């Protein structure tokens, strides 16, 4: 069971070899056994899961099953889920039971996929190690002394430990791809606007995008088919024809032009990561791809630009948490203003407060042009670099993160050191391009290494094709932590 792909699980359900309830029970048992050590879940509610599974079984029995009906999935605790505690990893929402479903949750419910629970995450998705969660750090299943990455660290860890066959994540600056890399799974951040942000607790609205996380590219393609689609409740949701993201999985790679950005293989990249990524390039060449060196000259500015734009948007988005309409309220206060100030001081963790302060500063009178406007202009230069690069190549390839999983606590006192982890992932968010991470090897310590693909706008089917062909030729994505088998 823990090895089964989504399509294999779906086939077993369709053939009535297993029921959705039995499947859910097996995963719930595995969660009960492994989660105390990994802390990948904030909320597990077996009763709710089994009710949803029973409904899926009824659909299957009635002949009304969709492709993934009955297959369970875990959801990042950033998605509002009707009747479920939805904390966003924060004390601010430690008691918030969402009164409605996020669009993404609605889609998985409509597909008949039972929820296994809500996964742990960095507070308000602000972090690259999952250590900022109010509910405690998540441990990397490959080595529990190491971080799983973040912010979708619970999602990545639960898939890596096969506590769930798949999970949802969100990615503002790398929060799907970096934890996928550090935990040895596959994760995809779609083109901005493909997946509705409705009911997904906002961090930086011009960058936030939800996507699938699972062992393989094929799994991610099936999940993307469920997740994408126009939603009038999200003003940036794109009105496009529905696509089948599995359609190109089996296409050969002959003639594929792979762009290698020289800036992504420069100083700062761990040599073992570089070697694994270069070996993956060799593998793709064997499959018929050619390579071309490209330049993303402004990508080195992606981190400074991101740490102006994302906090600016966050300071605005997080102003809604004031102790009036939902979540935490300070117990003692002298006035309305004092209630706001104390509620926010007590309800937010250190990293969230840091980013709100940066945002408030860069948007404040006299600094807007120098910071916010300058960052938006360089954002265009970064996007233009990609446009130029895609004239010479079909897909861009590089490392997902500069290193493998680091030790818990190793970088938590140095925000800048932590931010540098997202060096290679942030540019795609700023440009709004799709990006994915897939496993491509292990370092000498046995920790997974991630390979990043960045595609042109709406080229998810092509990226999944490249990833699937690579995964047919290699077995990195099917490796599991020995002691958790």
């Amino acid at each position: 069971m823990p090895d089964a792909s989504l399509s294999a699980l779906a086939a077993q359900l369709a053939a009535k070899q297993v029921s959705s309830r039995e499947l859910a029970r097996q995963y719930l048992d595995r969660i009960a056994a492994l989660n105390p050590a990994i802390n990948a879940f904030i909320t597990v509610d077996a009763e709710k899961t089994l009710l949803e599974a029973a409904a899926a079984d009824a659909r299957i029995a009635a002949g009304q099953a969709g492709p993934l009906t009955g297959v369970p999935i875990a959801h990042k605790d950033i998605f509002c889920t009707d009747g479920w505690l939805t904390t966003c990893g924060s004390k601010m929402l430690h008691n918030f039971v969402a009164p409605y479903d996020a669009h993404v949750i609605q889609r998985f419910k409509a597909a008949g996929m039972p929820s296994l629970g809500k996964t742990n995450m960095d507070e308000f998705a602000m972090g690259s190690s999952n250590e900022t969660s109010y509910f405690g750090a998540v441990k990397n299943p490959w080595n529990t002394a190491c971080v799983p990455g973040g912010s979708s660290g619970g999602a990545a860890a639960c898939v890596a430990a096969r506590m769930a066959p798949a999970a949802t994540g969100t990615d503002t600056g790398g929060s799907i791809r970096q934890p996928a890399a550090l935990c040895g799974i596959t994760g995809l951040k779609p083109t901005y606007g493909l997946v509705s942000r409705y009911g997904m607790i906002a961090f930086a609205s011009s960058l936030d995008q939800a996507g699938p996380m699972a062992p393989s590219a094929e799994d991610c393609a099936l999940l993307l088919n469920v997740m994408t689609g126009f939603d009038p409740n999200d003003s940036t949701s794109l009105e496009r024809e529905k696509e089948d993201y599995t359609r190109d999985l089996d296409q050969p790679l002959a003639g594929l032009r792979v762009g290698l950005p020289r800036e992504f293989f420069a100083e700062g990249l761990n040599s073992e990561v570089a070697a694994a990524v270069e070996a993956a390039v060799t593998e793709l060449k064997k499959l018929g791809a050619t390579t071309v060196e490209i330049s993303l000259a402004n990508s080195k500015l992606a981190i400074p630009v991101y740490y102006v734009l994302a906090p600016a948007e966050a300071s605005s988005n997080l102003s809604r948490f004031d102790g009036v309409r939902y979540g935490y309220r300070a117990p003692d206060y002298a006035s309305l203003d004092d209630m706001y100030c104390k509620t926010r001081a007590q309800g937010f963790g250190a990293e969230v407060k840091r980013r709100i302060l940066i945002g408030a500063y860069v948007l404040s009178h006299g600094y807007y042009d120098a910071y916010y406007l300058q960052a938006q202009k360089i954002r265009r230069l970064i996007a233009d670099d990609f446009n130029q690069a895609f004239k010479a190549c079909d897909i861009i390839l590089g490392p997902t993160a500069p290193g493998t999983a680091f030790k818990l606590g190793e970088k938590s006192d140095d925000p800048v050191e932590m931010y540098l982890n997202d060096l290679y992932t942030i540019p795609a968010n700023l440009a709004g391009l799709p990006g994915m991470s897939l496993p491509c090897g292990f370092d000498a310590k046995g920790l997974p290494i991630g390979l990043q693909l960045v595609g042109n706008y709406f080229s998810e089917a092509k990226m999944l094709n490249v990833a699937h062909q690579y995964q047919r030729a290699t077995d990195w994505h099917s490796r599991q932590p020995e002691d958790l088998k």
Partner: protein
Amino acid sequence: MSLTPDDVKRIARLARIEIDDAQAQATQAQLNTIFDLIATMQAVDTASIAPMAHAQEVYQRLRDDVVTETDRHAAFQAVAPAVENGLYLVPKVIE
């Protein structure tokens, strides 16, 4: 550029986050390392570049001016810290 502890207290005030002197001091040092990183973008000449606010050129959609939402105030207020007769309760602001 370097923030002073007073700057930190001013922006904390703007953001409605209570902060004491010791916290302002500690936060100042961390924010300054972040602003040192941010300062690297100041060297770029962007005089002729149009700012990019968004990845896609999207426009606000219009819809018919009809009610589409049902009244769910009871469900929404059930998660509020303090509610009475359909109203959110906050400390008194008008004498």
